[in-house]
């Protein structure tokens, strides 16, 4: 399992930040997932070994956090917030539009592997609702038209 040099530097540094190795687990899993696309058996094995944990320990943690996944996702994870503040300003319409446009449902991936769609809970964009996060990028004050442009931008 090869991670980037940046990952290794960060990982090495983080280990010095805590009295226990295990403490680096949650952020490390997320950074590993960002590089590998998802938390495969191989990634889980590697991280468990590095932190002196069992694979079960690691899986137990993965299943708790909503951003972590053991299944492959598309290149761009389109996360549409439909929680209260977004719902009041059209979040559900955006989600319905994405389902139709991309032809997939919650946690589905387009056939070409470009987009995964996810209905998510509050992403902290309430005052700029409705909002969508694509991977880590926030897109706010959206309309269906604006969202179309955003998605087109990722296709390129």
């Amino acid at each position, binding site marked *: 399992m090869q991670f980037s040099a940046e990952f290794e530097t960060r990982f090495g540094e983080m280990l010095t930040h805590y009295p226990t190795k*295990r403490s680096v687990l*949650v952020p490390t899993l*997320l950074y590993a997932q960002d590089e590998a696309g998802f938390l495969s058996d191989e990634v889980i094995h590697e991280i468990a070994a590095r932190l002196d944990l069992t694979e079960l320990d690691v899986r137990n*943690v993965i299943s708790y956090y909503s951003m972590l996944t053991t299944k492959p996702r598309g290149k761009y994870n389109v996360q549409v917030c439909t929680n209260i503040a977004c719902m*009041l300003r059209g979040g559900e319409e955006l989600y319905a539009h994405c389902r139709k446009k991309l032809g997939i449902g919650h946690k589905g991936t387009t056939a070409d592997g470009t987009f995964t769609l996810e209905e998510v809970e*509050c992403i*902290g964009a*309430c005052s700029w609702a409705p909002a969508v996060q694509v991977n*880590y990028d926030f897109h706010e004050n959206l309309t269906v038209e604006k969202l179309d442009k955003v998605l087109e931008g990722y296709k390129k």
Partner: protein
Amino acid sequence: MADLVSHPDEVRVVSRRFGLGATELDRYLELDGYKAVQKALAMEPDAIINEVKNSGLRGRGGAGFSTGMKWSFVPKQSPKPKYVLCNGDESEPGTCKDRLIFEHDPHAVIEGVMIAALAVSSQTGYIYIRGEYRYLSVIMQKAIKDAYARGFLGKNVFGSGKDLDIYWHGGAGAYEVGEESALMESLEGKRGIPRIRPPFPAVVGLWGGPTVINNAETLASVPHILLGGADWYSKIGTPKNGGTRLFCLSGNLEKPGVYELPMGYNLKKMIYDVGGGIPNGRELKAVVPGGSSTPVLLPEEIDVPMDFDSLMKAGSMLGSGGVVVLDDTNCIVKFALRTMKFYQHESCGWCIPCREGTDWLKKTLTRFHAGGGLKKDIDNIQYLSENMLGRTFCPLGDAAAMPTIAFVKKFRDEFEAHLEGKPCPFEEEGAVEQLPVLAH
């Protein structure tokens, strides 16, 4: 990057440096940065705690506990290392204020953590930022690195002879981790399951050591208090509710945004003046005053000062400062359902009243909104919610139950309008798949 707004009634304390480029350390220094911590270095720990106590600063995460008081609970002597933990796992629906602090003024958070550490004689602090806020984690990592490079952190900070380390930490998606003890579990690399209290974190926290845990906005307020003085800060707000607050206005408003207003600012004015009122000629229907877990207020209940004690008196809570405004086109049953869907999704499953309660409430509300409700279910919703209150390790159970009780109590007629096969009066025909009415 989130848009900034302004209003003449704003009192800029925490947001003083927003939009001024203070993520750069030199700019931060020009804007009085790291002066407060140098002042704190020359003070006795008890003097720092007293200053914060006297300022009337109360926890901005939602509970509203006196910050200085919290710090004073940390034992002076401890065989285990003491820690300061900044809670930046902002995830309460309606709340988006810590995001702006991290984006525009990360050094203020670092400085706040440093001062808290000096107040409780700790040498280590952590700043936990939710996983979705990756760009803010990048900003924070750079800010910490810059502070180390200048000798503001590390060994012998500012030549004081004291050592102080601060590290960033990242989450990976979990509302529950915003709860103090769950946050500590998460930082220790585990599932965010809350811990039983007592012992409280001030005595047994991270890795068993005494730990101060405060919300990011709380900590970012601290340097301003030390520089401006407790007296100045306390006078900005109302009695026992010192200072300002970042209010996140959202929902059906003309001018939603994050505004920094004095504690005790009138809610009605906040909605109609600061927020610009309700758009499209619609009427106000309801306000959730402090994030999704706070009981809803009716239009006739909003002439109230927005401070912890006044909101408590009004039967709600100031919570995390997320003011969610609903106009009269919205269905309360649907709103209650969406709120419950959230809590059901986020319940960690550790305590049965929360795990089962949120799930049954979600199921019942789903059926209700789809026209399959029975009259007796209205009381069942109430009964289920009331039985969750105070019966869980952490406040998530209460957070789900409290708003639900208020929705039913204040909008009973609307629940009744959905009974026994009647379609939701707020939805277009066919928009909601109708569910059958269960047998009596």
